[in-house]
């Protein structure tokens, strides 16, 4: 009975893990190329989840076919956000020499956060429409701030500013979606039947989600290693100065990889809803952001394949530990799994601080 449950959970963990992995690849890609940690990661997953939900409920599009739509939406969002917000903070200026302007950016970021917190409070207190117009005003103000203070380009902008900006982008997305769809949790029901393995039952939608993740990961791998465009992006990850002297348009590669990273993240939102088709709400991303960070660190942070691998490991740990913890008397297994996953993270980081896949040095 115990082993049946354990193997069942491990199989579930394996296929959920591949979706987790896919959900982290975008984060790793953006970090690898731009050295920006996308703190708003979860919000983009949420956008993907809503894409799948809306397409399925109002147009009857099966979620698996929502993947290319989500990729496209994500890439467009990525481009808009890159040029609108991220570029002034990260755009490389030549020979790897940092320009000044830190203090101004710090100030801009400070104002920005204050405004965001105010926005959160206001949208809770005031009438929705008023909150929305305030929100629009804030976007304008934000655009102003970034351009006035961030106008001077600089190499690898101050990390704090990029954290705040990506965090804010996430909040803005969440608020927009909340204005349109309210904060009520939604779900959809796409039933394709189930596969009975004897020790566990797998719905075909989950298997499709896992297969879809694997396909995207393999395509990304092939693109990175076999095509000229992919090689160019890889070269920027490895050495942006080297890429520049090879004639790679580094500024464009920055934009492209941010856009692709967001595209992958939004896509993963679709796949995640195929796994868990309920609880779709504007604030659903937070938990995934946290998991994605753990997974990215497991996989070595800057490598998208490492992230995929880390995702699988994380899925196995999370689901495997559930069985073990459930066997403990008096335990609350669901709450403890998260604890267990993070403990495992600590242990792995103690043994291999560079992540599971990273070579030393």
């Amino acid at each position, binding site marked *: 009975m115990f082993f049946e449950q354990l193997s069942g959970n491990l199989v579930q963990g394996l296929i959920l893990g591949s979706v987790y992995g896919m959900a982290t690849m975008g984060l790793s890609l953006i970090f690898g190329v731009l050295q920006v940690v996308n703190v708003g990661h979860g919000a983009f997953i949420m956008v993907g989840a809503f894409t799948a939900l809306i397409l399925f409920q109002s147009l009857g599009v099966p979620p698996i076919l929502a993947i290319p739509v989500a990729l496209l939406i994500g890439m467009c969002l990525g481009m808009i956000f890159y040029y609108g917000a991220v570029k002034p903070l990260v755009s490389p*200026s*030549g020979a790897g020499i940092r320009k000044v302007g830190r203090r101004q950016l710090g100030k801009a970021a400070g104002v920005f956060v204050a405004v965001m917190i105010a926005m959160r409070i206001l949208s809770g207190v005031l009438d929705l429409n008023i909150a929305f117009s305030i929100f629009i005003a804030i976007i304008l103000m934000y655009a102003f701030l970034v351009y006035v203070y961030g106008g001077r380009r*600089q190499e690898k902008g101050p990390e704090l500013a990029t954290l705040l900006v990506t965090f804010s982008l996430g909040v803005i997305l969440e608020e927009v979606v909340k204005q349109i769809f309210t904060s009520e949790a939604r779900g959809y029901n796409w039933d394709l039947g189930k596969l009975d393995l004897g020790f566990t039952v797998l719905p075909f939608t989950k298997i499709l989600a896992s297969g879809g993740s694997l396909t995207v990961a393999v395509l990304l791998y092939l693109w990175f290693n076999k095509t000229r465009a992919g090689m*160019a992006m890889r070269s920027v990850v*490895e050495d942006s100065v080297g890429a520049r002297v*090879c004639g790679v348009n580094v500024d464009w590669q920055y934009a492209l990889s941010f856009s692709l990273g967001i595209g992958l993240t939004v896509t993963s939102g679709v796949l995640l809803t195929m796994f868990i088709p309920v609880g779709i709400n504007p604030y659903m991303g937070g938990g995934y952001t946290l998991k994605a960070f753990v997974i990215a660190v497991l996989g070595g942070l800057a490598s998208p394949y490492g992230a995929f691998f880390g995702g699988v490991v994380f899925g196995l740990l999370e689901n495997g530990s559930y069985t073990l913890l459930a066997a403990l008397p008096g335990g609350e297994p669901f709450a403890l799994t998260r604890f267990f996953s993070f403990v495992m993270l600590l242990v792995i980081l103690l043994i291999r601080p560079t992540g599971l896949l990273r070579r030393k040095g």
Partner: protein
Amino acid sequence: MLKVENLQSGYGPMQVLWGPDIQVKPGTVTSLLGPNGAGKSTLLWTILGAVRPWEGKIFFEGEDVTFEPTHKKADRGLVMVPEGKHLFKEMTVYENLLMGAYRKGAQEEREANLELVYSLFPILSERRTQRAGFLSGGQQQMVTIGRALMARPRLLMMDEPSQGLAPKIVMEIFETVEKLKEEIGLTILLVEQNASASLEAADYVYVMHEGVIMAEGTPEEIEASHEIKEAYLGI
């Protein structure tokens, strides 16, 4: 081939170049000497377009390319071997060389240029499947030069190619520079700390100090001037 007039640039509010004028004639090795912090690297990066010029003009083969972005200049054959190698360490030697031929124009001549690089540096042919990060310092420098040659350069700008290498390897690098000039007829703009070796390799020399050109002339002329040698070159 390359003409730089009154070029000014810098980083943020800090001006580094204060209007140097230099000229590189086709088929020659032109050497740029000067102490650390003289602005030599900044001059190269500004010529390449990675640092934006504030004032002045850059002409390449008669055309004004002052504000052209780096990747467009690569199409013209303006190629750089950057200081500190900047190899793709996780890629193989072969992949590094392929990246050198990234631009469309260079792709057409990829096979021929690969032959050329392998004949100049036979060791790279032997090591082609190895990761570049595992090579010795001298071999890594060969990959960097090879990668630049893959871009079918017309003007090759080399920034400190002998930096951090053993004396024997330094000799080899300078021999390579001469070979590139003699055998392929490549035009080279060489920035070096190693003054005596680059005086030997150069056809014409500029001495730079604090962002301006302090002296210029043939290597013999520079060699003959005690003041220049003592004040700026430390030999």
